[in-house]
């Protein structure tokens, strides 16, 4: 059999190395590789080059995402957006008046269940923060020097993968963590501290009952802010977990930190769920 009508050219070799050559040409290249040591060496070198480039450029993917880019990935304020979830209680209140007590009562019950829960979460998070952040000697159960076993332990107890975000670029080092009581299920608490001994806690709980994020519903979730006895809390729901970041620093700083936490967890999730390369 003749090896090929058309001689193997550089375009064939490039496409072959990139796995993009049509099957019949690829067969022709493979036959040529058997005969031609120089060609085989060239293919080897080009493959090695691809691997070198990937090795050199892949670490960029693992770099922490800066806050300004996370802010840029957030829906802009202006524009036509559907009514936000937090507006619903207002509509419902009007409906109650119009439709009468019976129906109103039902709607109210539903709304308390929907909108009441996150408030409880924020409130609970603020109390828990105040309780442990004030503790000088034993704020955590497991210290940061055992981060790996801490994360493993919390993951096991929550039944959900827990990650400790790296807040060092923002001046907050991990102190450690503990398990705290949640509504029905346990909550994982991670504590951070800056050079001025100001403490932050990230609380995570898995609570499928309160999941109200619509699948594929873009931008329907939000960071919500609450303040309780001077403790500010940004909280949000993502997949089947609720997150609360609490601290006594001001709202703007806390939001910047919340974005970074969210961004790191989202990026980790994207990596975990990405199909394996090659």
């Amino acid at each position: 059999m003749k090896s090929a009508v058309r001689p193997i050219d550089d375009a064939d070799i490039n496409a072959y190395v990139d796995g993009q050559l049509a099957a019949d040409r690829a067969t022709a290249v493979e036959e040529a590789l058997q005969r031609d040591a120089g060609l085989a060496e060239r293919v080897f070198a080009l493959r090695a080059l691809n691997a070198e480039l990937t090795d050199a450029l892949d670490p960029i993917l693992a770099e922490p995402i800066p806050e300004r880019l996370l802010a840029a990935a957030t829906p802009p304020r202006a524009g036509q957006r559907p009514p936000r979830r937090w507006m619903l209680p207002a509509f419902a209140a009007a409906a109650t008046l119009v439709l009468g007590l019976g129906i109103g009562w039902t709607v109210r019950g539903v709304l308390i269940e929907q909108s009441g829960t996150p408030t409880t979460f924020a409130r609970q998070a603020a109390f828990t923060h105040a309780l442990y952040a004030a503790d000088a000697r034993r704020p955590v159960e497991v210290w940061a020097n055992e981060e790996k076993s801490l994360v493993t332990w919390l993951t096991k107890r929550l039944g959900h993968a827990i990650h400790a975000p790296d807040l060092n670029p923002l001046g907050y080092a991990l102190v450690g963590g503990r398990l705290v009581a949640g509504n029905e299920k346990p909550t994982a608490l991670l504590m951070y501290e800056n050079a001025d001994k100001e403490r932050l806690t990230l609380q995570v709980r898995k609570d499928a009952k309160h999941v109200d994020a619509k699948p594929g519903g873009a931008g329907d979730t939000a960071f919500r802010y609450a303040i309780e006895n001077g403790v500010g809390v940004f909280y949000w729901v993502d997949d089947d977990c609720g997150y609360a970041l609490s601290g006594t620093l001001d709202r703007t700083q806390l939001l910047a930190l919340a974005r970074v936490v969210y961004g790191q967890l989202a990026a980790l999730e994207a990596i975990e769920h990405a199909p394996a390369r090659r």
Partner: protein
Amino acid sequence: MTRDADPPVDLPHPDLVAAIPRLRRYARVLAGDHARADDLVQDTLARAWEKRRLWAAGTDLRAWLFTIMHNLYVNQLAQWRRDSAHDSLDADADGLAWQVPVRANQADRVELQHVLREMGRLPAEQREVLLLAAVEELRYEEIAKLLSVPVGTVMSRLSRAREKLRRIVDLPPAGLRAVK
């Protein structure tokens, strides 16, 4: 009692967040230095929100964002070229401040620096094709569409880029990669 201090702030869009690391890498390959690359990513995200009605379900968001970023970069270059004060920012300038990713350890750094420096000497249009084909593993047809050039152009840029790097990068003989 807890009071909700103010209206909620939207979360970053998870699909965009997931795309950011790859956008940053592409931007780094185009622009070289960290700050300028991140500016480019930020502009890309802003443009993506402006054109959000074009996010079609089921399409490849990454490729769409890459297209936006490529176009922004090309427009910026045209701007710089018109502005004589910015001659030094020309596409083919080898003054690109290539910076090695932060996580590299000392031994890796030397090798990565070498590869990145050599890549930095290629013209931007060759660097991006190399990234998209060799690292992102996009199909040549997808790359052509993304860059608005014929497939033949993609292939010739790729071939020229590799030819230069093959001579410059000290490609190891068989077996060296196993050492790592």
